[in-house]
Structure formats: structure tokens, C-alpha cells
């Protein structure tokens, strides 16, 4: 056991390895602890002792404490020892830390006191209290915060007693400790004492942030009795205190505080009122809605803007008339915010009111209401159809947009009609966008695609046909695929162009046969290549059964006429190493133009799938690499000028094969460690193959395939 652990530790440390998870995964804590203690007692290097401390954080007990305590005065290892001492549950660790405070000084003492604080060691209270007047301000400050973590009444009393006479730097830490104590008392139900401490701190001459923390605590701990204090903050001339009010208002529990915000609004400046309104809206469960609504109706523009925005969070149907009025005002910003709020205002009652107003509406509010129907997706087909016949273009445009957002499958023909036979030519573009918006949300994409396909056939306008094709591409599904495929294979160049582009980005794998067919049948070579690349995209990117992907690659290889596409096929094979793809790579080795790449891919796959040496020999016998003599002359692993000689390890792994299979997939693991942690490394091998010298360089962890030297 000991031997094993030491071996792991020394191996890791000696080469400056990152400590891997496996280094720590020991289960027999007692035996492990004994080994680790022995290491600390030995003259091992500091690096080894550091790692032992880390392990003792898991495996250590009271037995380890004495050796760890000896490291506390050690500038290099003190922090490592405290990692273990903070984690060991036994009270012996507390005692050791307390003892150390008697002899340590400076930062080491500060660290030890910090650890006492983390362990909340109440027995250290008096010891820490004595340190509050240490001449080293860092020591005194650490003691103050540690007392705060202990959080007892005794700790608080010591802190409060030291506050007045401390230096400003230490005062801040004492105040921090006091606030921590107050918080603990509040949690423990000792609210009166907590408030007493908070009040003392907030009323003292202390750094602003300490006062802010105490004021927040003083307000919240008081519950409803803290409301007047909160309201006072809203009228504070101090920006920081006003900001504290905004944050504390959001936190304040209960519902009694909400009505009070109206008074704060009335007594403040416009810029502050806007901020108070936003805070009010964040209290969604108990918000005082009438106050926000009133602020939206009249007053300074900036306040109204904040109120209208707040209504988007907390408003309801009662806000609709006001928001509609504001939506028609001259102020662009206010109008836009009101419209955005209207789109979000929750509730079916809001929808009912909008529909009720729609049929009687005229003038500027009419298109506004129609847009709201669309934005809120209110079913109101009859009203929208009526609007579609309106003389005013803005009304018709709004109706088209709303139909696009709301129409059901039965009504899709309405939009199709607007696209292929527009009554007003100027409406076509909006109608096309509306048709697309409607189509992509249809519950049955095939039914939708069938209707669009009919429309495509019925139209004799090329721009319309293109628009419909693009809509079909967005809809997807088998029917859309069929129609787009036909367009791509049509005799019209523009349709071929759009169709092949859409197929090339199709989101389902059933486009593959269509693309393959197009890659062979298209009249233009440009579209053939585009289609084949689209086909390869599916083979490369989509989740497919192994056999299916290999079959696709095989077909692509047969269909490809250019070297570029053939090489893309090989890249796909290498990306998915499995038996079918290995077989196909071996077939590709028979192509003289692909032999080198295919052989490399086959070797890579063979290695990844765990082929035996015999398998590889059999594989190589199919190439002219089958019979080789390989000698490794040298091997260097590293980055830049930092190289490590790994010749012996590579020689050991090499055989009379062009593929060198290391003992582990990771170069770092196989080649004795990481020579340059955190940096991408390379392995460079000089070798002799069948008497000819060659050199090859491999990116970290790449398969090592040595080519025949030229």
C-alpha cells in the first residue's frame, strides 16, 4: 500500500504533473493516513509534503494533527497544512490552531486565525478577543472577523467593547464582525440583541459600507417596525443610502410596506421616482398597482415611462384603457413602451377587451388594436378579414401581420391567396412574411406543405414561387422536402438555385437521398457539387446509425467526381471510427488518388476501435505498407524550446508497423508526464523505414501514423 501511494505521489510531483483525480481516490483512510503522516515525518521534498497535506484533508484524523501543526510556521507549507487542519473534524485540529497563535506572527498568524474563524471555534473566543488589540492591524482585523464567524454573544461583546478605541482599519473589521454576530443572533431568534448591534454600528463613525450593512440589517430585523426607517432612506440625500432603500425595499417581507411607497413617490424627484416605481414592480406579490397606474397617467415623462414599463411586469386588465391612450401619444419613447407593455400585459380579460374594441375602432387606434391581436395571438379571424379589405394600407398591413401570428390551419388559404393573388400589389411582401410566420407554427407541417405546394404550382410568378419555396424550407417535413426537391431538379435555374440551397441546410436526415439523387442528376455541375456537399453535411453532422452513415459515405464516394469531396468522405470516416467505416476506408485505399489518406484513416480507425496487431498487419497487407522495417531514431515531446526526450518510450511502443500504438491514448500518460502543462504539445519522431530516413510531427494525442519517406 505504502509503496503504491508513494509511487503515485512521487511520479506526479517529480514531473510537475497536474494532480489527477486518481491520485486521491483512496478508500482505506486509516492506512492512507499512516502513509501520509510518514511522508510528512520524512525528509521528502516540500512538494510531496504539500500533496500529502491535500490528501490528509480527506483522510486525516487527530493522528495527523501533530505533524500538520509542525508545518504552520513553514512559509511554504503553512497554507497546505491548514487545508488539512480546516477539514479534519476532530477538536485536536482546533487545539492545534489555537496553540499556533501563541507563537506565530504576521501573515502566518493571520492565516491561522482565519482558519479558526472558518471552524467557528468558540473556545478561541478569549484568545481572539486578546488579539483585537494586537499592534499588527491585519492580525487584529482577522481576529475581529473570526469572532464574527463564531457569532456568539460573548464574541459580540468583545467586538463591541473594542470598537471605539480601535484604529480606523481595525474598526472596519470589528464592524464586519459585529454585523456577522448580529446576523447569527437574528437567525437564532435573538432579534432584540441583533437590532441593538445593528443600531450601534449604523450610528457609529465607520466606513460607509459597514453602515450600509448594519442599516439593512436594522431595517429588516425589525420587520414592519422597520418601515419608517426604510422610508427615511428614500428621502436621504446620500445616494448610497437611497440605493440601499431600493434594494431593501425589494427584500422587505410582508405586504404592509407596499402602500407606503406612494408617499415616498410623492416626496421625491422624478429620477428617484422612476427607480422607486421599478422597485415597487419587483414586489409582484403585493404590489400597489393603483399607485403605479396613477404615475403612468400623468406627471414627468421619465416617471411615466418607468411606470408604463413597470405595468408590463405587474399590470392587469384595469390598466388597458390607460395604456391604449398612452400608445397614441406624441412622445415616441412613451408610446413605444406602452405598446410593448400592452403586448405583455397578462390575462384573458385583456384579450377580451381588445377584441371588444376592435370592431368599433377607427383611426390610429385601429391598426394598433390589430397589431395587439397579432402580438397577443388573440383568435379574431373575422375581424381581421374585415380589416384586410380596408382602404388604408397600414390597417391591411397590421391585419396581415396579425393573421400571420394567429390564423389556424383552416385559414391558411387566406394568406396563400394574399400571396399569389394580391388585391394590392404593395401588400405582397408583408403577406409573404405573414404566410411564413403562419406556416412555421402549423401543427401539421405536411398538411401545411401540401397547401403551399399547391400554391407553388398555381403561381406563375417566379418571385412568388421563390418565396413559397423558402417558406417550405422553413416548414420542413416530408412533403416540403418532396416539393423543394422537385424545384431543385426542375429545368429553371432560379428554382434549382433556391431548391439546392434549401436542401443543403435541411434539418432532417431524410433530405439525404434527395441530395444524393440531385448530385447525380442535376444539369449544372455547380448544383451537383452543392448537393453532394449537402449530402456529406448530413453524414458528418447528424446522429445516424453506424451502418447508415457508412452506407452514405460509400454512396458519396461513388458519386464524387472531385478529389475534394472524396477527401471530405475520408474525414467523415475518421470522425466516426467504427467497423463499417474501417471497411470503407480500406476500400478507398484501392483508389490511387486516395491511397495515402485512406490508409492513414484506416489506421486511425483501427487504432481507435482497438484492432489487434494481427488485424493491423492484415490491414496493411492490403497496402504496400504491409512489409516494412521500422527503426525509431529519436523522439521529442514538448512545445517550443521545452522538449523532452521520449525516444526510449516510442521505441518500445514501435513495431514493424507504420502505426505506433502507445501504451495510453494520452501522450502525457504514455510518455511519462506533461512536459509543458497548459500548452498544446507536439511529438516529433525521426525514423527509418525500409532504410529510408523520415521525420513526422504529431499534434498532442493524435494517432501516430508514420508515412513512407519519399
Amino acid at each position, binding site marked *: 500500500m505504502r509503496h503504491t501511494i508513494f509511487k503515485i505521489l512521487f511520479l506526479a510531483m517529480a514531473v*510537475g504533473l*497536474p*494532480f489527477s*483525480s486518481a491520485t*486521491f*481516490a483512496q478508500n482505506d*483512510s486509516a492506512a492512507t493516513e499512516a502513509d501520509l503522516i510518514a511522508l510528512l515525518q520524512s525528509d521528502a521534498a516540500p512538494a510531496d509534503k504539500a*500533496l500529502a497535506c*491535500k490528501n490528509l*484533508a*480527506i483522510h486525516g484524523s487527530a493522528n495527523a494533527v501533530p505533524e500538520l501543526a509542525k508545518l504552520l510556521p513553514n*512559509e511554504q*507549507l503553512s*497554507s*497546505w497544512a*491548514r*487545508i488539512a487542519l*480546516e477539514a479534519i*473534524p476532530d477538536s485536536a485540529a482546533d487545539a492545534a490552531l489555537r496553540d499556533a497563535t501563541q507563537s506565530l506572527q504576521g501573515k502566518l498568524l493571520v*492565516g491561522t486565525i*482565519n482558519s479558526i474563524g472558518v471552524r467557528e471555534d468558540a473556545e478561541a473566543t478569549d484568545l481572539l478577543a486578546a488579539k483585537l488589540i494586537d499592534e499588527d492591524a491585519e492580525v487584529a482585523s*482577522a481576529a475581529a*472577523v473570526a469572532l464574527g464567524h463564531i457569532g456568539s454573544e460573548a464574541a459580540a461583546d468583545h467586538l463591541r467593547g473594542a470598537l471605539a478605541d480601535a484604529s480606523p482599519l481595525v474598526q472596519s473589521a470589528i464592524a464586519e464582525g459585529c*454585523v456577522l454576530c448580529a*446576523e*447569527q443572533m437574528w437567525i437564532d431568534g435573538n432579534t432584540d440583541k441583533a437590532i441593538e448591534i445593528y443600531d450601534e454600528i449604523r450610528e457609529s463613525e465607520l466606513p460607509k*459600507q459597514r453602515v450600509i*450593512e448594519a442599516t*439593512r*440589517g436594522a431595517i*429588516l430585523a425589525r420587520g414592519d417596525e422597520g418601515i419608517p426607517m426604510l422610508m427615511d432612506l428614500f428621502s436621504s440625500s446620500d445616494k448610497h443610502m437611497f440605493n440601499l432603500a*431600493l*434594494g431593501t425595499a*425589494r*427584500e422587505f*417581507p410582508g405586504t404592509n410596506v407596499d402602500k407606503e411607497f406612494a408617499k415616498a413617490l410623492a416626496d421625491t424627484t422624478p*429620477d428617484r421616482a*422612476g*427607480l422607486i416605481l421599478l*422597485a415597487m414592480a*419587483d414586489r*409582484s406579490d403585493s404590489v400597489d398597482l393603483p399607485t403605479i397606474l396613477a404615475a403612468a397617467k400623468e406627471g414627468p415623462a*421619465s416617471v411615466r415611462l*418607468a411606470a408604463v*414599463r413597470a405595468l408590463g*411586469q*405587474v399590470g392587469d386588465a384595469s390598466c388597458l384603457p390607460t395604456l391604449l391612450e398612452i400608445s397614441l401619444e406624441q412622445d415616441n419613447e412613451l408610446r413605444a413602451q406602452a405598446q*410593448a407593455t400592452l*403586448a405583455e400585459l397578462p390575462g384573458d380579460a385583456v384579450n377580451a377587451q381588445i377584441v371588444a374594441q376592435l370592431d368599433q375602432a377607427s383611426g390610429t387606434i385601429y391598426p394598433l388594436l390589430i397589431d395587439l391581436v397579432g*402580438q*397577443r*395571438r388573440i383568435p379574431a379571424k373575422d375581424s381581421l378579414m374585415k380589416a384586410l379589405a380596408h382602404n388604408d394600407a397600414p390597417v391591411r398591413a397590421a391585419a396581415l401581420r396579425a393573421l400571420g*401570428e394567429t390564423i389556424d390551419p383552416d385559414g391558411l388559404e387566406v394568406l396563400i391567396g394574399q400571396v399569389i393573388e394580391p388585391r394590392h400589389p404593395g401588400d405582397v411582401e408583408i403577406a409573404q412574411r405573414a404566410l411564413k*410566420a403562419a406556416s412555421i*407554427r*402549423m401543427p401539421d407541417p405536411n398538411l401545411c406543405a401540401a397547401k403551399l405546394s399547391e400554391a407553388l404550382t398555381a403561381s406563375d410568378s417566379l418571385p412568388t414561387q421563390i418565396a413559397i419555396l423558402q417558406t417550405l424550407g422553413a416548414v420542413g417535413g416530408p412533403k416540403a422536402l418532396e416539393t423543394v426537391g422537385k424545384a431543385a431538379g426542375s429545368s429553371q435555374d432560379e428554382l434549382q438555385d433556391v431548391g439546392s440551397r434549401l436542401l443543403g441546410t435541411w434539418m432532417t436526415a431524410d433530405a439525404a437521398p434527395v441530395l444524393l439523387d440531385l448530385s447525380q442528376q442535376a444539369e449544372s455541375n455547380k448544383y451537383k457539387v452543392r448537393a453532394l456537399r449537402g449530402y456529406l453535411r448530413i453524414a458528418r453532422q*447528424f446522429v445516424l446509425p453506424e451502418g447508415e452513415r457508412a452506407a452514405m459515405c460509400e454512396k458519396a464516394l461513388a458519386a464524387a467526381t472531385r478529389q475534394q469531396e472524396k477527401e471530405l468522405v475520408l474525414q467523415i470516416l475518421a470522425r466516426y471510427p467504427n467497423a463499417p467505416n474501417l471497411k470503407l476506408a480500406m476500400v478507398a485505399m484501392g483508389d490511387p488518388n486516395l491511397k495515402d489518406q485512406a490508409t492513414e484513416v484506416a489506421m486511425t480507425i483501427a487504432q481507435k476501435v482497438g484492432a489487434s496487431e494481427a488485424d493491423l498487419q492484415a490491414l496493411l497487407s492490403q497496402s504496400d505498407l504491409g512489409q516494412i522495417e521500422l527503426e525509431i531514431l529519436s523522439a521529442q515531446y514538448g512545445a517550443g524550446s521545452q522538449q523532452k526526450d521520449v525516444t526510449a518510450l516510442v521505441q518500445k511502443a514501435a513495431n514493424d508497423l507504420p502505426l505506433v500504438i502507445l501504451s495510453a491514448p494520452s501522450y502525457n500518460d504514455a510518455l511519462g508526464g506533461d512536459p509543458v*502543462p*497548459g*500548452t498544446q504539445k507536439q511529438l516529433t519522431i525521426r525514423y527509418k523505414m525500409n532504410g529510408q530516413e523520415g521525420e513526422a510531427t504529431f499534434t498532442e494525442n493524435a494517432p501516430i501514423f508514420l508515412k513512407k519517406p519519399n
Partner: protein
Amino acid sequence: MPKPTSPRVHDRRKFLKKTAAATGAAIVAPTIIPGSALGLNGTVPPSERVIVGGIGIGNRGTYDLGCFLQQDDVQFVAVCDIKKQRRLAIKKMVDGQYQTDKCEMYRDFRELLDRSDIDAVLIATGPNWHATASMYAAKAGKDMYTEKPVTKNIEQSLILADTIRRTGRVFQVGTQRRNLPHFAFACELARTGRLGKLKRVYAHPAGMQAMMSGWLTPEDLPNKEDVDWDMYLGPAAWRPFNKKHLDGFNFEKGGGLVGGGVLEWGSHCVDLCQWAVDDCPPPVEYDPPKDGQLVSRYENGTELIFRETGWIPLGSCPVRFEGEDGWVEAGDSGKMVLSSPELLAGRTVDEIGGYPATFHVRDFLDCVKTRGLPKGNAEAACNAHIACHAANIALHLNRQVKYDHRKHEFIDDAQANRLRSEALREPWRL
């Protein structure tokens, strides 16, 4: 050991619940509170700007800083970095933006925090410092936007939430996907029951190996002005200087015995899963990884599954939520796939790919002004991080662990409980 200290007097999550769009409105990038609603008109006067300082502004921080500098109501005034090179680079960037020479430089962030004119800080150090620097900032009265992962263990997560509550500060963790429309919509579908009873939520951890940085061969300590190694180590246990640690990325990622693992990406995608389950307490049961999956369970039986493969190609950081009536999957391409178009219910969802942080930064700045609760608030971050830390502990111990989210401890599991926290190097404390 870990315990919540600060009383939760009011459920602040309700603020955010209420803002979920319940009607047919389109899902767009978060609306920004107009300046005029805050009493501002036209250009923002200096007195109304949020004065910001930056701590540890490396690669990611530079991107975040760019998002801050885009905002008219931000005045960036100071940078702190332990590397002189970074201090100078950021000063040049900021001064170039403002055409001034006023961006102050600091090596010790406490000096920056002592400035009373600074309202908020951007903390984009390595993860080693995120929680500790945030705690110091909160206690110094600053609001903060802190990069993720923000905590190194369970205890830090709890203390962070308590400290932010106690100090009354505004905290936003850099989980910017909470402010992107398609992720927000996907989470809303799950949260509001539109998918039916939620069965499983999936997160992509992008790596499940726990590790920590080592003790590398000592090298000559650089000049403190150039690289302040002691400050760089900060709360991490001592080790000798070695420049390989300085990339910041691999140094104490996630922390001590257990760290890294699912945390790096989990702090994004588990965070989204947590949003999908309405930011409820973290799962209570975590199985060891098996076949590339680590399964955990919430108290109500919903599973949170860390899964490496099997994703629809929608870009990095994918999440998937499955209910009894439907599912949704979304990723960083800005796109999502739904089990049925009916789930859209006619609504349109803006596709914003590339996970920009602009909206998240804006959300933070608005909350600095209104004192509202940002989307990536400390309590939400606390729960998501605890889920990741607990999963890492199951990964590390290679066995099931059970977590009691009320007591904040593992049940009858001394080993797991000892992994909840880790001592900070002197003189740092939380």
C-alpha cells in the same frame, strides 16, 4: 463548515419569474431600461455614469471590457493586474477609447477598491481569484461583474450568496447566455410547464476530468512590478514561481482537490439547466460517470444529466430540456430545435449566435442603477456552481454522493463533506 448565514427574508427569485413573457410577445434580446426612465435624457452626464474599474483583465476580460466601453453610461477609470504588460495594454485600450490619459493602473486590487469614486468592478482574473476578489469588492461597497466559474467549492458558493445579500451589492456572474433570447425561451418553455412535467435537463460539460495545477520546478522570481507572483497566487496554496502557471487558464481552475471537471463549462450550461428548473436548489443525488454521462437528480425526481455526446449540432454549450409533452434543444449558434412547432405558439425568437456578453453587461449596468436583481445573480450562481461542485465530488470519489441542500452537507458521507471547502492561503479570507 458550510452554512448559510444571511437570512433570506424575501424570495428575490420572484422578481425574475414575473418577467417571463406569458403572452404572445416576441422573444428578443433583453430590453434595456431606457435612460429616460431613469431620469436621463440624451447624452449621459458624468455624474450619472457608472464608474468602473477592472481587476485582472486578460483575454476574456478584454472582451468584457469592450462590452462595457460600448455603453454610453460607463466611465472606465482604472485597471489592476499583477502583470505590468496587461496593465499597460488595458490603459492603452481605455485611454484610446476616451482620448485621454486618465486610466489609472494598480498592482494590488485593494488599492483600486479603496477608491470611493468607483461604483463597480469587472473581475476577470483567473478562477483562482474570482470568489475572493468578489468578496473583497462587495465588502468595499462595489457592485461587480465577475467572470465564471466564480467559486472553487461549495462553501465559497454559499458565502458568496450570503455576502452579496448582506452587503446589498449587485452581482452578475459572466453567464451571458441568460440574456440571449433563444436560451431564455428554451428555459421559459421548461420553467413554465410548456414541455409538460420536466423529466430531464441535459448539460454539456465538455470534459469531466478533475484536476488541479501542480508544483512545478522553481524558476527565478520575476521583478514584482513586472509580475507579482505572491498576488497571483493569492488565495491558492503556496508553490514556487514557474511561468507556466501564468497563463491563468490552467492555474487552480475550479480550485483544490476537486476542480475543473464539469465546472468550466458547467458554470454556463448547468446554469441554464438550473434556470430551466426555476433556479431551484441543486440536485440531491449524483451518480458517478458512466458511459460518458453523469446523472444527478433533483428532489422532485427531474434528472440533470451531464452528457458529452449525442447533441444536435447547434454549436457549443448545448442544453436540452425534456418534459412529458415535448423537448427543446439550444446551442451557441443562436438556434434551437423544438419537438413541435406548436411550442413556439406563434412567437418569434431572435437568433443571436456567438454568445455575446453585451446584453448581459447591459443588464448588470441597469441593475447597478435600479438595484434590481440581474439574471446572473449570486443566488442563481450559487446553486448552479454547487451542482457542478457536487458532480465533481462524485466524479472524484467515483461513487454516488447525496447532497442535503437544506443543511448544505452530504448525507452520511465524511469524505464528500471534507471536499466542500478548502483553506485560503494567508492573509486572504472570505
